[in-house]
């Protein structure tokens, strides 16, 4: 299926999943056709799991769409994949008023679209206006509810006006927005189905430009010699359609593709040790958590939630399920988000005795000797809802089931495919069939402010607060962190809310997973990031 990667959201560790220069005419030895150094710069062949329905950055949603849009187009700024600090791209500098109500961006001179037309402030306003168009209901638009308007000051200056102070604006802009060309899209009646631009001939400002899109087979990009940061090292980047993850691995081993981003940790051992292939890992801002529905009766009691938190051996999960590729989590903000991470919040230790004490305190004991905890004649019973097709989710769920059973809980598993999981579990938050308990991966923007979406009570009914956590104290701290223009006050608010979410077991934080990239070992300059592929102009062969 075509899996969707919403810019900054749940979207589980999606198993990600195409002529060019002097390649051999391919009769006998497919293995050599991916050889890199046919020409000076060489080419990189990347796998894609599905044909992109669009490469227009305003609409890009699936993994392949986002990957392509980010190589073909640029934002005003981009986030450094290691520090998450915004760096200049189409804008060279920016400043904001002290009240974080107005942001002024100075655009780079001399930038040209792939068709040779100049890039101007009008393109920026056009793109932002489309992103914010309620009729289009775009993904990036949802990060900018605080944005009032975009104004063109002059051809190389743009001003963004906020409704409320929004200190995280530049981060979100760098993360979520790539600029599309006004001169090609203005006046198009149906922008979403405009295949002439979206799939056949997208025109961006990026380091690579589209040569051909052979649907059902591959997409070829070539170096843009006029790229504003200088010509890229590689000659070509080819996206090859390979829907099956096992086939992707086979093709990496034969050298038919050069890189697999975001390799599932469960298959990493089968790639490790392949001659000529290297595994790179990197830390991320993502976290995995057990979601206990705060409105589902046994979980309404914080002591029960804490008891369950103490029952989980997180170190074992990291070593056994992640093969060590991750870090035990204490809260939603990963250590990599240095400006906001609170190192004083300790993860819950594995302490089943403490779990039993807490459950007893909460009134849960086995009175009838059937091995199941009960209270007021009701057994401690719930369903662990398991998302199938995601090995980490499946394995963690199986381990947690045993750990909860050991406490005397009556746990049963129920399996769901992605689409039914989302509607029947994630988005069924109340009523008789409300979700109960499930383990999923949380996809955060690399900006601490993003936790607002996950824990603020205003996102409980619809939005990313899936397990309906409602706490006025948390709301107040989250609002303060979101709007405060005093960096110290903002930091303190993030620190306090991390402690609160941990103590309250708002979500049961498990671990921060590492990303794993498998690539040809001569390939260099590829940052390991959750959202591929930044800095593609710097990729090259040794």
């Amino acid at each position, binding site marked *: 299926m075509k899996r969707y990667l919403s810019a900054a959201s749940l979207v589980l560790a999606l198993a990600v999943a195409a002529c060019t220069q002097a*390649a051999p005419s391919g009769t006998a030895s497919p293995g050599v056709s991916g050889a890199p150094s046919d020409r000076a710069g060489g080419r990189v062949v990347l796998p894609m799991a599905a044909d992109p329905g669009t490469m227009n950055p305003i609409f890009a949603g699936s993994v392949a769409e986002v990957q392509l849009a980010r190589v073909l187009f640029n934002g005003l700024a981009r986030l450094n994949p290691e520090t998450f600090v915004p760096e200049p791209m189409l804008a060279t500098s920016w400043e904001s008023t002290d009240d974080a109500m107005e942001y002024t961006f100075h655009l780079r001179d001399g930038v040209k679209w792939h068709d040779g037309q100049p890039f101007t402030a009008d393109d920026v306003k056009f793109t932002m206006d489309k992103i914010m168009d309620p009729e289009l209901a775009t993904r990036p638009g949802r990060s900018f509810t605080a944005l009032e308007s975009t104004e063109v000051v002059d051809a190389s200056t743009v001003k963004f006006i906020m409704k409320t102070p929004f200190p995280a604006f530049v981060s979100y802009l760098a993360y979520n927005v790539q600029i599309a060309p006004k001169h090609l899209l203005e006046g198009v009646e149906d922008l979403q189905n405009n*295949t002439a631009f979206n799939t056949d001939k997208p025109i961006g400002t990026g380091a690579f430009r589209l040569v051909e899109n052979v649907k059902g087979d591959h997409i070829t990009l070539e170096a843009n010699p006029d790229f504003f940061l200088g010509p890229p090292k590689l000659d070509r980047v080819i996206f090859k359609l390979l829907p099956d993850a096992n086939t992707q691995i*086979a093709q990496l081993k034969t050298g038919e593709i050069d890189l697999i981003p975001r390799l599932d940790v469960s298959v990493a051992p089968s790639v490790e040790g392949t001659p000529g292939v290297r595994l790179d890992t990197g830390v991320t801002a993502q976290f995995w958590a057990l979601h206990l529905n705060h409105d589902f009766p046994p979980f309404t009691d914080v002591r029960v939630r804490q008891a369950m938190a103490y029952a989980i051996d997180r170190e074992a999960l990291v070593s056994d399920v992640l093969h060590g590729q991750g870090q035990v989590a204490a809260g939603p903000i990963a250590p990599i988000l240095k400006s906001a991470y609170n190192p004083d919040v300790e993860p819950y230790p594995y302490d089943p005795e403490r779990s039993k004490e807490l459950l007893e305190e909460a009134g849960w004991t086995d009175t009838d000797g059937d091995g199941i905890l009960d209270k007021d004649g009701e057994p401690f019973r719930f369903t662990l809802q398991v998302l199938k097709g995601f090995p980490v989710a499946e394995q963690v769920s199986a381990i947690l089931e045993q750990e909860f059973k050991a406490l005397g809980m009556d746990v049963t598993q129920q399996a769901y495919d992605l689409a039914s999981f989302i*509607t029947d579990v994630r988005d069924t938050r109340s009523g008789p069939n409300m979700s109960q308990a499930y383990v999923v991966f949380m996809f955060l923007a690399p900006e601490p402010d993003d936790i607002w979406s996950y824990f603020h009570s205003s996102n409980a009914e619809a939005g990313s607060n899936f397990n309906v956590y409602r706490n006025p104290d948390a709301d107040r701290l989250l609002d303060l962190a979101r709007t405060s223009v005093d960096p110290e006050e903002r930091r303190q608010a993030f620190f306090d809310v991390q402690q609160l979410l941990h103590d309250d077991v708002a979500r049961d934080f498990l671990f921060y997973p590492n990303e794993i990239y498998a690539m040809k070992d001569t390939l260099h300059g590829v940052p390991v990031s959750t959202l591929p592929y930044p800095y593609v102009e710097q990729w090259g062969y040794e």
Partner: protein
Amino acid sequence: MLAYAVRRLGSALLAMFAVTVITFSIIQLAPGGPAILLDDRLTADDREQIRRNLGLDQPLPVQYYLWSSALVQGDLGDSYLQREPVSDLIARAFPNTLLLAGVSLALAILIGIPLGIFAAARVNSSWDYGSTFFSVVGISIPSFWLGILMIILFSVNLRVLPSAGMYTLGGDRGLADLSTHIVMPAIVMALAPLATVVRYTRSSMLGVIRNEYIPTARAKGLAERVILYRHALKNALVPVVTVIGLQLPVFLGGSVIVEKIFAWPGMGRLAVDAAFGRDYPVVMGVTVVVTLMVVVANFLTDLLYGFLDPRIRWA
């Protein structure tokens, strides 16, 4: 003959109507919704807007009416995921599936029938047991397993065959290139039907050989080859043709697993991606085409009976 064809056409249209109504209802009943509606950051308003944009806010019968009246005009609608006409998607995928199906079917028939005759002519010999063993293995091996195994052996270890796709990147996209790419998927796809054809040919031949006209032919002094191929085979083929006819829609619908493993851009993969992504227009479009294929395949099978056995009349 003409009346027969008209009657068949009538029942085909009826079948088409029933199948589309049922599929239309089932996909809407399936849990989950179109993948574009699954984004967790969507507000209730966004969801409503997207549903309106897709026409999903209309009552189901109205949606079916709109879809079927467009269909009559040859319009299958636009894919939610690919955002292009479903007919374009199918027009791209169908020839690829047809090619793979044709090659696999040819393998199954050209190897399966002679092997079945061979086994029948030497019944209870070690050749016969060997072919039985081969058939059982062929029917039992899961294609995803065999596919991956073949990729590991022939692509990763021996490096003699390409692992996936239809053409080499940057190659000439010629016939030679295509042939090397089709070898593995065709073998994997042909194996189970081939084994089935072997079994049916063998048992059907054994049945026919017992008929009195065979000893009669032998008594006339005819060569064993002539007996087998001219006298026995034609009659023995009726059940075999039935089996192949029943397999046709499976072939033409595309093998989901084979197409996915070997990255073969055909109908099976299109259908499965659409089903998982709840891409309703594509699911419906593929359903229409496959239903049409089933109807045509059944009709052709029936016609073929008459040619094989003149006693069968179309009435």
